[in-house]
Every structure is written in C-alpha cells, then in structure tokens.
C-alpha cells in the first residue's frame, strides 16, 4: 500500500521536485556547457517573458487545438473503421494489411510527402495527425468487437436485436473500455505528431517556436517550450480521463471491485 500522502497531486509534486533538483544539479556541475543547458531560473525567466509577450499562449492554443481536433477525428475514424471491420470481415482482413504497413511509419516521414500534395497548413496537419493517431482506437476497437462475449450476443438476439441494435446496445458498449485505452494512447501520439509537423513545415504553434528558438540558440526558451509540450500531455490525458469516466465509468468501478 502506498501511504496516502504519496497519492495524486502530492506524488506529482514530489516527482517534479526531484526532476528539477537533478536538473539544477547538472546545471551547477557544468557537465554540459552552460549556454546549452540553462538553469531553472533562466528557464523560468524565459517562460515568463514568452507569457508576457503573448507568444506562448497563442502558440499553445494552436498546438493544443490541433492535437485535440486531430485526436477526436482520428478516434471517430478509428471506431468507424473498427465497426466496418466487424460488419464486413472481408474489409477487416484486407484493411489489416494496410494498417500493418502504415502503422510503423513515424509522423516525420509523412510530412515531406504531404507538403507536396497538400501544401502547408490545416490539411497537412489533419493528414499527418490522423494517419498516425487512428491506429490505437482502430486496433483496440476491432479486437474488442471481435472478443464480445457470445453469451451477450445471444442475449441480444434472444431479445430480438437486429444487427444495428446489437452493435449499438451490446457490442459497442462492451468494446468501449478497450477503445478508450486506445484513445488514451492515441492522445500522446497526436500531440507528438502536431509538434513534429509544426517543426518541419509549420509557420506557428509550439513546434515551430521550438525550431525557431533552437536556431537562434535561445536554449532557455527551447527548454521552456519543451516543458509546455510535456504539460500538454498531462492536460490531454486529464481530458481523456474525464471523458472516459463519463462513458465507461462502470468498467472502472467494476475493475476496482475485482481487485
């Protein structure tokens, strides 16, 4: 058992303090030249400056909204494809090959090709983000739809459910916990994909700012921005968890009970 004091926010604060202390120690020991590894006060100052100028907030809003919209679109698409695979096994088997080939391609590899065909801007982000984020919800969803308990399906059929009612009332609810596990994983991928696209071909957003500052050798700014990217992940996970509790809270309570 973890002592209660080490749970939740306290645990986060302790972990953060340890990281910051290590950081400052490395900085003071000057293992890395100071101008490539600024201390915490310098990073905080850079952070403060960027907030004051308004750059950080506008960049953050762009990056976070791109990642969120991408995640929502990719999740819906992934669920749709999983449903299609369930309704049509032929499609499911065929699409499995396509996903096996596309899935290992990193977001950075899609960007150059997409720049030529889609240009710079929204279409490019949508393409890259969806193409790398769609897989966890799709793969988890199609596996979970396949694994629905035959007794549950028999129950639905006994009560007169047709194929769509069966999907809506039995199969999807039963697959939802697994789908959400996929979405949670996809949330991180979506953030990574947006930042990478912004770095490689963007004109704004946190990724673009990191790239620009890095070339200007403004390392304190770069570290502050990286910290913001990390916080984005925490924020995104928090949002997904909230939604998850609303949709599949029953499952979480059931699992807690079985422990």
């Amino acid at each position, binding site marked *: 058992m973890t002592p209660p004091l080490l749970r939740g926010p306290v645990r986060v604060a302790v972990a953060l303090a340890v990281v910051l202390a290590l950081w400052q120690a490395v900085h003071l020991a000057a293992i890395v030249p100071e101008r490539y590894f600024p201390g915490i006060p310098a990073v905080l100052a850079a952070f403060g400056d960027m907030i004051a100028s308004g750059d950080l907030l506008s960049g953050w809003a762009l990056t976070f909204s791109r990642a969120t919209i991408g995640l929502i679109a990719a999740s819906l698409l992934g669920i749709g494809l999983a449903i299609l695979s369930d309704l049509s096994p032929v499609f499911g088997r065929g699409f499995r090959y396509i996903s096996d080939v596309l899935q290992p391609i990193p977001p950075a590899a899609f960007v150059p090709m997409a720049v030529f065909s889609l240009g710079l801007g929204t279409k490019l982000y949508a393409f890259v983000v969806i193409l790398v984020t769609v897989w966890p919800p799709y793969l988890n969803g199609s596996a979970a739809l396949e694994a629905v308990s035959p007794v549950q399906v*028999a*129950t639905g059929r*006994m009560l007169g459910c047709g194929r769509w009612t069966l999907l809506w009332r039995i199969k999807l609810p039963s697959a*939802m916990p697994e789908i959400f596990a996929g979405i949670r994983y996809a949330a991180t991928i979506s953030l990574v994909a947006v930042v990478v696209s912004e770095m490689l071909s963007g004109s704004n957003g946190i990724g673009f700012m990191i790239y620009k500052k890095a070339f200007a050798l403004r390392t304190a700014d770069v570290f502050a921005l990286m910290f913001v990217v990390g916080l984005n992940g925490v924020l995104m996970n928090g949002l997904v968890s909230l939604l998850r509790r609303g949709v599949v809270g029953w499952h979480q309570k059931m699992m807690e009970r079985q422990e």
Partner: protein
Amino acid sequence: MTDILTARNVAKDFGGTGGTLSIIDGLNLAVKKGEFVSLVGPSGCGKTTLLLCLAGLQSLTRGEITFKGVPVMEPPQGLAVVFQDYSRSLLPWNTNLDNILFGMRRVAGDARAKRDRAAELLEAVGLGGFGGHYPWQVSGGMQQRVAIARGLASESELLLLDEPLAAVDAQTRADMQDLFLDLARKFNQTCLLVTHDVEEAVYMAQRVLVLGPRPTKVVREVTIELPRERDQLETREDPAFLAARHEVLSLIRSMRTRKAA
C-alpha cells in the same frame, strides 16, 4: 392442451477441422402450454446446444422446431432463455433495472409503464431495493434472479432455463426452486428446465425427459404423478417422487455402464 413447443427429428452437427461432430440426432419432444418439463442428461451430451436450437439461436442440421405452431428460424418473441452463464448474460454497463428494461424492448407500452413493470418484477424476485445496482455489485444468486426477471419482462410464455441453479449452494438452491415454481405459476410460464440434478428435475416438473449420450435424443419420458403443489419436505418423501427418482437414476446409470462396457 396444445403444444407450445415441438421438435421433430432434430439433428445438429458441428463442423470442425477433424470432420463433423454429431451432437443431436433424431430428437423429438413436445411441451404443452402451461407445463413444467425437465430435461436431464449427462454433462456434455448437448443440453445447451439443444436449448439454443429450440430458442432459434442456433441453426439445425436437420428437422424442424415450432413455437406456437410457427417454425422457428430466428429467436421468436414470447420465448426467453435464462443462460447457463447468466452472470455474463447480464449487461455490466446497465443497472439491474436497465437490464430488465432491455428485456422489454419488444414489449409495447410507454416508458413510464415499463419502468413500473420492471420495478414490480424486481420486487417479485425479491430484489426490490437493487434496481439501481449494477449486476456485478450483487451476488451470483441475485444475478440469477435478475436474469429471470429479465426473461419474464420480455412477456415470455415459454422460459428455457439452462442449469440455472448449478452454481448456488444447497439452501439457496431449495429456495430458488420454490421461487421458480411460484413465478412460473404467477406469470403463466411454460418452463423447460435443463439440469443434471435428477432430484431437482423430478421435484420441479410434471414430466422429465431423459436425454441419451451423444448424439443425443430423448430416450425416456417419465410422468411425475405428484400434485402440482410441491413442498421441499413432503414432496421429497412422497413415494411417487421416490419412484420417479429411482426410474430416472437407474436409466442414467444403465447408460453410463453401457458406455463404459
């Protein structure tokens, strides 16, 4: 009285990699409206398969099944199954009350009336205060009663019960047997009970059908000459009960020794 359920010359094979496996062959049975019939047979002989076929949940290889005179192709309305794996047949994302409401999806009526009816049914199976609980928050015996209430909620006339009491302890089992008999009468249910417990089969039914080894069919029909009203103490000491029990048990034993020989 008319037959509510008939099976004529039913056969069921399962196709596998190593050829076909014949589970049921040449099975005939008929259940009259209002009857309580037990089906007994050795474990693995195909009882669950037969029940699923009778319910229209599995296709036949040969033969015909009718429910209320109509050939069964799809699960018909008016027929409810209480599955052997009852805890998994309840939907864990729905509360007990919502599970029962799901059972009423083909029943006419407005939402208010359905809710009242579902609450009444929970009351009838002794779970008045548990409508807001999820199935996984109540005991196995209680889940079983929710599954039965859901069957009744579908306005079923025929209940197919697949070893519903196999997993409960002896005392609960006796109580549940009486609850079933009580509910069957109160809700005018015709019941077909699958069990491997011969005493239970005799105690509950007016007729016991004995299934043979695989490929299974009905090998004997035993009429239970007992009054409709049953009592855990008196019925079980009644000479007619003991005679029927003896007949069924010795038949099953002879099948077992024949198989061993």
